[in-house]
């Protein structure tokens, strides 16, 4: 068969070669992303599992050896604190931006502030926490400055995910509530926020996984200790998992490397479980979104 192609245009054969090439490139790119991800997870598991002992979770650290109970509890305490501080602030901010912002002055300032804060490098947040809170106000390495800095970091994320899940609540729900004569606050709580709840919870889970996996903002605000967290907000340092990954991997002892790998594995499991739960919530609750309503 003779190929008929107007002069200046590529031949059909060449076009099909290019189409095949495009498919190969597509799969190659996907492999370049998925491959390293599996390689990384496999690498951490392969290094941590052979020396794994469950007592890591129950014994205290001795710095470059021992267990990680203090760091596990510390990370959970930090995440709980972020849930309380950043969770309340972020969700309320998101509700305000979605429901009350129309026509309100200053809301533009809030949106810009959220965008700017979302782009703030985490180490610069940590620096400010250190010089202004830990040293400047004399709080020392402790829970409160660490929580404040982590919260500054994730509030924009929570606010935005809350706002966008509220936007996805079908208009019919709001109109229905209004038609039934529900007072505004009641309708918001019982109808609007409730149907946006899966999205809000997903945003919170992702924010918590970010907070739990952060290192840079904590190094100079939380300090570190071999003891379990105390109830005091100030003057008592608090341990966390990422610290041990960051400091122990290049210490000159095998025990230290084991601590680093163990901390990585625990972190990875913790973060991935939260992300999977978030994903399951999203998958289960698609019915409330505007598009499928």
């Amino acid at each position, binding site marked *: 068969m003779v190929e008929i192609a107007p002069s200046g245009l590529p031949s059909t054969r060449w076009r099909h070669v290019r189409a095949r090439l495009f498919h190969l490139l597509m799969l190659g790119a996907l492999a370049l992303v998925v491959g390293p991800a599996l390689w990384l997870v496999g690498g951490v598991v392969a290094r941590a599992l052979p020396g794994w002992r469950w007592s890591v979770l129950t014994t205290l650290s001795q710095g470059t050896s021992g267990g990680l109970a203090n760091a596990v509890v510390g990370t959970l305490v930090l995440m709980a604190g972020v849930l309380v501080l950043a969770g309340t602030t972020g969700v309320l901010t998101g509700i305000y931006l979605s429901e009350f912002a129309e026509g309100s002055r200053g809301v533009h300032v809030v949106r810009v502030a959220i965008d700017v804060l979302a782009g703030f490098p985490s180490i610069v947040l940590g620096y400010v926490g250190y010089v202004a809170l830990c040293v400047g106000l004399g709080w020392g390495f402790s829970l409160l400055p660490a929580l404040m800095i982590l919260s500054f970091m994730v509030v924009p994320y929570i606010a935005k995910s809350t706002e966008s899940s509220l936007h996805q609540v079908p208009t019919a729900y709001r109109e229905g509530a209004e038609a039934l004569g529900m007072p505004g606050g009641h309708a918001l709580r019982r109808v609007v926020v409730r149907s946006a709840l899966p999205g809000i919870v997903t945003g919170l889970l992702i924010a918590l996984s970010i907070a739990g*996996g952060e290192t840079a903002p904590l190094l100079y605000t939380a300090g570190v200790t071999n003891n379990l967290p105390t109830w005091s907000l100030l003057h008592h340092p608090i341990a966390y998992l990422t610290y041990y990954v960051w400091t122990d991997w290049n210490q000159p002892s095998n025990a230290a490397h084991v601590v680093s790998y163990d901390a990585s594995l625990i972190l990875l499991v913790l973060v991935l479980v939260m*992300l999977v739960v978030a994903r399951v919530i999203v998958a289960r609750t698609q019915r409330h979104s505007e598009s499928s309503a």
Partner: protein
Amino acid sequence: MWRLGGRVATLVPVGALVFLLAVLAVKAWPAIRVSGWGYLTGSSWLPGSTYGGVEKVHGVTIPVGAHYGAWPLIAGTLQTSAIALVFAVPVSILTAFALTEGLPSRIARPLGFVVEMVAGIPSVIIGLWGVLVLGPFLAHDVYPLIATHIPNVPVLSYFGGSVGYGEGLVTSGLVLGLMIVPIIASTTRDLFLQVPALPQEGARALGMTDAEVARRVTLPWVRSGVIGAAVLGLGRALGETIAVAMVSGSVLGVVSPNLYGTMTTIAATIVSQLDSAATDGTGFAVANLAEAGLLLAGISIAVNLAARAIVRRSGALGAPVGRA
């Protein structure tokens, strides 16, 4: 009550931002006064006398011989981010195509989940893997292939020379690239899904191949959104700290002579130097880190605002898993 609570809550991000910028500006002021514009062009990072000898420069007390120039840090930040973008943008766009068109959804869905998951892996773990596994692998098996076959002529010789041990510029760039792929890819995928089916089907009906539909219909349709996503990824790469601090080699005062050399970035310098800077009794070292932080914050903020403006205008809905 909701309205009041919400209004009070909105004060937090605004207040936090004012607080952060005010602290940085106040702390950086002595450094700005002493170094002026020279801070941006100088290459030395010398803390000066550690035995208590001080002098007064422009009314600021600093240790004798202290001299700070951030050029190598600025260069390192821009270089690693540029490498990250060169890697991540094509990979992300092709990945997004694979996830939306190339594969059956039964396979694409779990793989898409894996891609999003990468954004959630803590950066310290990516750094650990980068320095223990990826870096040595690249330095042993990949870089030599490039470095030994590159002709020693201007420009191209940048790709030659010593490849080191896997800690350095290109390793940092690639690690950053892997970290920002999920941000760009998941946003791009969501954008592709919003492209109406009619123009795509029309193009196919006219006999276009998949590749031609992708290049001439789908991609142009969402171009500004993809650019926005890429710039958002750039913002993340510029500010990333821990992973780069682990794989860059953290060498102060040097701009890498070739693609593989050790170096450092603004963010990595702050995290690795703050400890020792705190021992400078005059506070000048800490002030210089504040100026570095202010510089980095300025760059990141400008990039992020630009990205968000572009994404917002193009109506992208997709929010990636990680902190973007």
